[in-house]
Structure formats: structure tokens, C-alpha cells
């Protein structure tokens, strides 16, 4: 038999828990589901032999890196999207498949930091501008990343993926190594190598 006092104290407890949870999720770390296979095999590995129901990976996203916006090459980051400026012929295709909603978040790996040079087969050498970074999905064949929408401002990043927490057989850390894609070559500049 719920009395008003009981309901009120229950509401207060839930509200406090909600506030604490929101603060932790905003400032320290939160969990996120990874959709799609653009980061295989690191996240959501695609297993052709498996006929069982494949679960999405859940990852731990830490937000302490946002205090100073200090990232390194090889970090797997979560960032809000911006649409590509649509400069070339393929812009129509990009509009259909690329993120166009500022609320959408993507997970990719940082391949290059400000000042680095990127070699692409189709375009000439691109220099990553100040305050931006070049992101690439581990599964280069089916990944919408900086090769389509160009370098992204570091300010769009909202966290760094450090661990996989679900499913249980895949619990473990996410490493910071870049497997060099043959078509994307990075010339590291002196200022940012550490």
C-alpha cells in the first residue's frame, strides 16, 4: 500500500541517482552500443561462419580526455557528425549515406593529427588543418570516414573508446594501433609526434 511519504522518498532517491548517473556519464565515462561493421574486427567483428544471432558490442567511452582535448594517433573516438560540404561529383551519394544529423555519433579511429599529410589515391596530398583530425574506420572497405567527409574538427569528439564491455566473451581493451591501410598513407609531422 503506497503512501504519499513512501512515494515521495522513492522519487527523491531516483532523482538523486539519476543526477549522479548523468554527471558521471557526462564527465567521466559512459556506455555505448556500436552499430555497423565499419570498425571490424576491433568492434562488431563480422563472422561469416557464424549463423547465430550476432550481438552489437557495447563499449566503455571515457570522457576525461575532453578536459584538455589531448588525443593521439590510433585512439578510437566517438564524435558527432557533420555533413560533408558536397564539393564533388559523388556528393549526391554522400548525402544519402552520410551522417547529416548533428545528434548522430560515429565511432572511428584517429589516423592523423593536425599538421600531418595524408596521401590519397584519388586526390592529391591533403594536409590536416589546425584543430582537426583524420578519422578512418578499421574496416576500410565499408566505412564512411574522413575519406568521404574530410577532416573533422577535434571539438566534435565526445569521448574515447577504451574497453569492450559486452558480450562477455569479447570483454577486453581496445588497442591504439593503426593498421596502415595501403591507400591511406600518413606523413607524420614533427610537432605532434610523441
Amino acid at each position, binding site marked *: 500500500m503506497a503512501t504519499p511519504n513512501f512515494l515521495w522518498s522513492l522519487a527523491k532517491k531516483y532523482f538523486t541517482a539519476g543526477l549522479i548517473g548523468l554527471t558521471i556519464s557526462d564527465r567521466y565515462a559512459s556506455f555505448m552500443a556500436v552499430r555497423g561493421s565499419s570498425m571490424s574486427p576491433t568492434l562488431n567483428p563480422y563472422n561469416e561462419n557464424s549463423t547465430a544471432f550476432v550481438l552489437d558490442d557495447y563499449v566503455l567511452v571515457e570522457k576525461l580526455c575532453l578536459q*584538455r*582535448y589531448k588525443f593521439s594517433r590510433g585512439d578510437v573516438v566517438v564524435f*558527432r*557528425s*557533420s*555533413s*560533408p*560540404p*558536397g564539393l564533388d561529383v559523388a556528393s549526391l551519394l554522400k*548525402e544519402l549515406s552520410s*551522417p*547529416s*544529423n*548533428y*545528434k548522430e555519433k560515429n565511432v572511428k579511429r584517429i589516423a592523423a593529427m593536425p599538421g600531418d599529410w595524408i596521401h590519397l589515391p584519388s586526390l592529391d596530398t591533403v594536409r590536416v*588543418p*589546425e*584543430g*582537426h583530425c583524420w578519422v578512418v574506420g578499421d574496416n576500410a572497405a565499408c566505412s564512411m570516414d574522413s575519406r568521404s567527409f574530410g577532416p*573533422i*574538427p*577535434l*571539438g*566534435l*569528439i565526445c569521448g574515447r573508446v577504451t574497453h569492450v564491455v559486452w558480450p562477455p566473451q569479447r570483454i577486453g581493451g581496445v588497442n591504439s594501433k593503426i593498421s596502415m591501410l595501403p591507400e591511406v598513407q600518413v606523413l607524420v609531422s614533427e610537432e605532434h609526434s610523441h
Partner: protein
Amino acid sequence: MFPTFKDGNIVLTERITSRSGRVGSGDVVLIRSPDNPRKVVAKRVKGIEGDEVSYVLDPKNSDEQKTVVVPKGHVWIEGDNIQNSYDSRQLGPVPYALVQSRIFFVVWPPKDFRLIGNEVS
């Protein structure tokens, strides 16, 4: 952002407008700089996605104007002090997700206590 803000002004900002995607033309916003993620600047939004924005390329030498359509997911920001502002005229359209909050009130010093509106005062 002179004359809207002067050195030493303390302002009140709200995040509801920016989180719900309702930032419109004329709003003064705090936006993270695309050039330096540690810097948050105050600018006025002159155009949202789909708007056509015209600006003078070289104010000192000529009157030649350039018109740009703001792409989807971006905003066009300009400082109120046109002569001395580093904004979308140099940076280009800025992604909407960089908008942090909207400034709507000046609270200090007391003689400047007022609402911030959509027009440059």
C-alpha cells in the same frame, strides 16, 4: 562581439535551444572553435542550413560580395564587430554540433543588465 559585449561582461547561457536543434538566425551562441578545441567563442549565427549568406570579401579594398549556401548540419557565424572578427568569413560554415549554448542575458555589470535579442544593438 563589440558592441553587444564588452570586456568584463558576464552572460547567462542556456543549453536547451542548442540541444534541441532550435538555434536560428540572429541568436548569439557560444561555439567551440574548429581551429582549437580548447577555445569557446561567442558569435552570432547569421545563417542555418539551407540559408544563403552574403558577405563582403575584402572590406578595406572592395565592395565585392560572395554568396554561400550553408550546407546541411552547419551554421554560419559572424562576430558583431565585423572589422575585427575571425569567423565564418575566414573559417567557412561551422558544424552545428560545435554549438555549446545560447547566450540570452547579460548580467554584469548592472548597467548592462539586458536581454540579448536577434538584432545587433
